[in-house]
Every structure is written in C-alpha cells, then in structure tokens.
C-alpha cells in the first residue's frame, strides 16, 4: 500500500477514508463523528491511519488559513464591533482635489502596520482616539474640531456634547471649539485644566514633559490646576501659557514662537532665526531628527518663509542660503558646511 515513487491515483478509498475526509473537512454529522471515534479504538492500525490523514490535514491547514484569513478585513470587523461610528477626514487642501477620507476608508488601510491614521476604540464608557499621523482632523460630537499631531490621543465619554464637554488628552492638538455657553469645554492634561467657551488654540501635553503648553489663536481660555482651588489664569489671543505640572504653576505671556502651529499648517516663518531654531522647527514639522550643530554652524542665522513645502525643498533653500549640505542617515539629518563665523 505504501508506494513512494511515481504514485498513481489509484489509491483505493474505503468507507472510513471517506468518513475521515468528511470529518476533517467539517462535513461529518454528529453520528458520523461517533462512528469514526468508535472505529478508531478497535485497532492500532485504524489509529495510525487516522493519524496520518489528520497530520496531512494539519500540514495543509496553515496554507488554508493564510488563504482565507485576511487580517485587514478581520481588523476592520473587530474595529467596527468596538468603535463608534465617527467620521474622520484628512487635513483639507494639502493638495488640491485631495479626497476626504472618511472613517470607513481609513479603516481599510489601517492595518498595514504603522499606517497613518486615527484609531478609535469604544468601550461602554469612553471613546479613545489616537493619531498615528499628523494633521488628521477629528469632528467631536458637539461640532468642535480637533487636529491631532502624530502620537496625540484624546478620550471622552458617552455624555460628551450633551452632559459635558470634557476631554482628556496627551500629545499635541489644535482645538477649534464650538460656542456653547451652557456647557463649558474642558481639557485635562494630567492635573492641568483648560476651559473655554468657544475659541481656537493649540495644546501641547507631552507625556515626557513636565508642562502643558497652551497657545491661544482667538477667543479666551481659562487655565487652572485642580489642586489650586480653581485659581485660574485667563489667556488672551496671541498669548502662550506654560502650565508646570510639578509645581502647579502657570506662566503666561506673549507667544514668541511664530511657528507653534507649523505642525498643522506646514507654514514656517523665520526672522533672523538661529540655525538651531530653524532645525528645531523643521524637525517638529517633518517629524525628523537632526544631528547637533557644530559651533560654527550654530552661528548661522536665517530669514525665510516656507508655505507647505516638501522637506527637500525647504532644505534646498536653507542649504543654498547658508551654503550648507544636508545628508540623510536613518531619518536623521546631518548638516555640514563652513559655518557662519
């Protein structure tokens, strides 16, 4: 019965062979399963026979699973089962005619590991949104908009928009808050609290920083720490506040950094800025590292503005202005040149 070479297809199949094949294909009835089970223990040769067919079935099962299980599809189904239905669109007008991405489309590309997108999760209580790429705009249930920077996450509960407008966040985000005088809009970054009635501002609450930074574009916001009996600081447009989480102190003043919103707008403005400042801003906007500058390079200063340009274009301009060369090494920019002494 065991011929290994030039096997022909004349192997005879017995009643039990067919039954076992049925069983392994998921076609056997409860009665047939019992029949196989009983037959198997009537002799070791039956067991040995079953074992070989079972092993063959196992050997071809991994392939079968690879063919049948599409991880992207499975993930989307899981995501649908645990998330809220919320529309997400990508930052508008980066390229003319760029289509808006709604959640369904975002979900379809979500899984190809480290894909840009926003992840949503819902349990009974809260919605958690975290951005894996910068510039994605999220519409909150109350009509407010949040633009999330890569790595930012926000969380809010079911009552958001009706019972409260409370948001917890980490990372950096730009808020455009809809006016709603009856329900204040409150953001928590650790113990820091930022409350608004309707306004536009940028919040940075990075997990590795001891402070929450707020820059106000328009309207007004009130800032406080829970520990300080709601003693609050009011911020005016164009001002920036640094909320020190350790000392529970708030320092407010004119915002000196014109590029604080560049991660969102990709508009960079430099006025006699040091090369260090320039590289810092570029690094933040294009999510790239740079090697520390030599002393002679640090002396270089630049006046220029860039409006939504590609990294390479920006570097070309900086390089030809200051006579510098930029090389890339593993997502890190290396800068070389004579310097500006």
């Amino acid at each position, binding site marked *: 019965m065991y011929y290994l070479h030039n096997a022909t*297809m004349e192997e005879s199949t017995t009643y039990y062979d067919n039954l076992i094949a049925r069983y392994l294909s998921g076609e056997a009835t409860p009665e047939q399963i019992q029949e196989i089970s009983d037959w198997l223990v009537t002799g070791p040769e039956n067991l040995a026979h079953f074992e070989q067919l079972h092993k063959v079935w196992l050997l071809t099962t991994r392939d079968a699973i690879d063919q049948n299980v599409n991880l992207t599809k499975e993930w989307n189904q899981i995501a649908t089962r645990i998330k809220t239905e919320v529309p997400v669109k990508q930052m508008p007008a980066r390229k003319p005619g760029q289509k808006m991405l709604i959640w369904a489309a975002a979900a379809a590309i979500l899984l190809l590991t480290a894909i840009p997108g926003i992840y949503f*999760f819902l349990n009974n209580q809260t919605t958690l949104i975290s951005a894996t790429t910068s510039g994605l705009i999220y519409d909150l249930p109350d009509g407010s908009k949040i633009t999330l920077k890569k790595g930012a996450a926000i*969380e809010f509960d079911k009552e958001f928009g009706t019972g409260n407008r409370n948001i917890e966040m980490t990372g950096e985000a730009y808020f455009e808050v809809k006016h709603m005088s009856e329900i204040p809009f409150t953001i928590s970054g650790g113990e820091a609290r930022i409350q608004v009635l309707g306004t536009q501002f940028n919040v940075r609450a990075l997990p590795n920083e001891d402070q929450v930074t707020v820059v106000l574009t328009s309207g007004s916001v009130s800032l406080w720490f829970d520990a300080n009996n709601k003693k609050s600081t009011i911020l005016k447009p164009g001002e920036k506040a640094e909320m020190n989480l350790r000392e529970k102190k708030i320092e407010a003043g004119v915002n000196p950094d014109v590029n604080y919103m560049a991660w969102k707008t990709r508009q960079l403005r430099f006025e006699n800025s040091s090369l260090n400042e320039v590289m810092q801003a570029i690094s933040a906007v294009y999510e790239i590292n740079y090697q520390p500058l030599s002393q002679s390079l640090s002396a270089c200063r630049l006046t220029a503005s860039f409006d939504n340009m590609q990294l390479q274009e920006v570097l070309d301009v900086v390089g030809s202005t200051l006579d510098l060369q930029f090389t890339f090494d593993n997502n890190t920019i290396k800068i070389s040149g004579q310097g500006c002494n």
Partner: protein
Amino acid sequence: MVMQEFNQKFFQELFEAEFKGLCYFAVRYVKDIDTARGIVQDAFVQLWEKRETIDVSRPVKSYLTTSVHNRCLNYLRDSRKYNERMVEIEHLSEVEGDYGSDLIAQKELQTAIKNAIEELPEKCKQIFLLSRNENLKYQEIADKLGISQKTVETQMSKALQHLRTRLSAYLPAALIWFFLLTK
C-alpha cells in the same frame, strides 16, 4: 493620563501577532475556517471589552488561547459535534516533529506539500483546493462544478490518501500509545 497599560496600540499589536495563530488553534477543533475566525474575533472583542479588568502583567496570549479553546468546545457541544475521544486523539496526533525551529526542514516540507498537491489529477486538485483554500462546503463544491456530492467526497478522500502517501516521511507516528493506554 489617557493611555493605559492596555491601550489600543497594544491591542492591535496583539491582534497582528496572534490572530492567525489562534485561527490555526481553533480550526483544529471546529474544522471550519469561517467558524474558527468568528470564534477568534469574538475572543478579541471580549478581550477589549474586559481590558480594564485584565491583569496585563500576565501573558494575555494565554488568556486568549484559553478563551478560544473554551469557545471551540462550546461550539462543538452546541452543534452536537463534541467527542471527547476525538479531541484527545487529535491532541496526541498533533505532536509535531521538530520542524518548527528548523527553517531548512520547514522549507523542504513546504515544497513537498506543494509538489504533492500539484501531482493530483486536475479535477481532484481543484476539488481539494476549493475545500481547503476556498473553505467551500462539499455541497458548494458540487454545485460549483456541477458534480455530485458523492464525487466530491471520493475526490477529497483520494486527495488526502495521495498526500499521505507522498508526505509519509513527514508524518511521525505518536498515537499508538493512545491505543495501548485505552485498552
């Protein structure tokens, strides 16, 4: 702050790393890939819902495996297909050779499987692949090819016999002990 130990990133990484492996684990019980992945999906959804009460210092994979295992047995019971002896026999039969760690042996095995399937007569191969790789039921294959269910049954059986013959070198026996023990 916002992010917990068990956050969505962790959940997604877990999903990517374990989903297919758990499908393989489940299909060994339920014999049907659609059923298996439904069960694994349920286990992941439940894991997410219970994430706040799960001790993440312990391996979440073993939580998932247990969950899938129980769901498989429940499914078999509900569909009256649970047979304790079969579960036990198949469990013993699974004891694999050491191919898992030996990449060359694994590759050789993959080639052998592929060749053995290629050798099947056209019709037989077509039926076998529709059943295994397309996960079609006997009746669906019969309808699709305009043949009888009986033909599908015979051809499936023949395909398995052929593969068994061709791959016998890779099928170490373990079950004989089961027979001796149950005597």
